[in-house]
């Protein structure tokens, strides 16, 4: 069953024919076939969930719930892009998780400074003792900046910009995954990019020199 498929963090490339066959088998109840599809899309799903929720544990829960829901409803898959269909499950699961977090907010486990009670972003007791390379630091800074700016977006903009700019979806796939018309996707993406552009320009020197953004125009 799932055990022999092994652990993989990488997307398993499937040809369209393979994928169609696996989907057909999964609809007939073949769990092994479904798990092969899970292995193909789990990284994409987890990254989407993480960018939307900005929390690794919540993203893990949302991804798992999305795959459970996908297995239960795979009989309702009516063709088209399976990737978009799965990502729709992930998006819905993220919305559910956000609602749940909104109802029951959690307190971070990060320790506080005794004097000013501010959170320590990288507490020493959690720090990785291995020295980081300079480029690794740069990547971390870049990711932090991007994640901060994405988290600042309204939740309905997040899904669009992550799917199209981060995951590389085209507009129609994003429209199918989010369940909104193409015009809405275009509009949301443009607004999200406008906000991200302003937000990222605020990080200035933290971004790699080739990505530093200037301030040229203002949205009306």
């Amino acid at each position, binding site marked *: 069953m799932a055990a022999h498929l092994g652990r993989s*963090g990488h997307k398993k490339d499937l040809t369209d024919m393979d994928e169609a066959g696996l989907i057909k088998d999964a609809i007939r109840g073949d769990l092994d076939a479904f798990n092969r599809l899970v292995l193909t899309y789990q990284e994409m799903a987890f990254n989407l969930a993480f960018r939307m929720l900005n929390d690794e544990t919540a993203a893990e829960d949302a*991804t798992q719930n999305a795959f*459970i829901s996908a297995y239960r409803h795979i009989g309702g898959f009516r063709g088209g892009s399976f990737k978009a269909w799965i990502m729709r499950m992930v998006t819905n699961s993220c919305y559910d998780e956000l609602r749940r977090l909104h109802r029951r907010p959690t307190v971070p486990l990060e320790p506080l400074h005794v004097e000013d009670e501010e959170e320590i972003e990288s507490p020493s007791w959690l720090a990785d003792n291995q020295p980081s390379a300079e480029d690794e630091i740069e990547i971390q800074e870049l990711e932090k900046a991007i994640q901060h700016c994405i988290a600042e977006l309204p939740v309905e903009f997040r899904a669009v910009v992550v799917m199209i700019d981060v995951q590389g979806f085209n507009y129609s796939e994003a429209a199918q995954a989010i369940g909104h018309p193409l015009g809405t996707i*275009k509009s949301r993406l443009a607004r999200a990019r406008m906000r991200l552009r302003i937000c990222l320009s605020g990080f200035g020197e933290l971004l790699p020199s080739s*990505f530093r953004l200037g301030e040229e125009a203002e949205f009306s």
Partner: protein
Amino acid sequence: MKEQISSQEWILLSSYLDGELNPREKTRVEALLRTRPEIHAVYQSLVRTKSVLQRTPRKSVPRNFTLSAEYSRQPQRSLRLIPVLRLSSAVAAFMSVFLVLSQLIPAFSPAVNRLVSPDMALQPMQEESAVMEFAPAFAEPAPIQEPPMVFWGGPPFVPQGGMGGAAVGSIPGDMVREGGYAPPIVIQPQAEKAIEVPQTLPEIARQPGEEEPLTGSGPILGVREPQEQGKILDSPTDQRMLVTGDAEVFATESEPTTPWGIPIAYVGAIVLGTLAAAFMVTALILKKASRL
């Protein structure tokens, strides 16, 4: 350099960046980029923003999200119940509304529908209730067997004066006793004398100038025209007027009620309404649970 750019231009630039414009829009954007430097600058910043986002590091999955065999056994019985519960809810709600309407609107009432067809409905009603009770005034009298009257221990009373003007001698002598045990007195009913009804009433000689007597077929005497006879007239209350040959009677339709006096139809409507709500809530809960 700060310039105002409309939201439409933003959307066009953003879509142009992704190659998602039709040829006409593409030509328009290219013209804007050539003629307006601020638009060109914004476009360049958009290109860089997209490049930054594309450089977003991919996070590796903390674990595999493959499903174990227990999930394969779950394709759930409860999910199959959802459409059944929804349908039951709709049916129960419809029946509940129908019951309420049947009580409120007379047109929905099955009792009225029964009366529409006189062949089907009128006959049993005539036989059962009103006609049997009120019509015998001119029907042939059935022989009635009166039981004998028995007085134990003497007469029920001793007249002590008065007697309402009745002569003492008119009381049977055996009924007047003074104290002591008296054997029972049995009074046999007297056979009724048959009243002879003349077949034709004697004509009364009218004096000249006297008004025409009432014939007995007009509404004043409450006697309906022959074509109206046998019909049931609606009345504002639940009673319905049954027109017979000579009398109008009210046939009361009593509705079945519970021991507490509430009509069963209302109780049924309430029960069905509650069931509809319960089914709907259960279906919603099951659907919500299935999404988790």
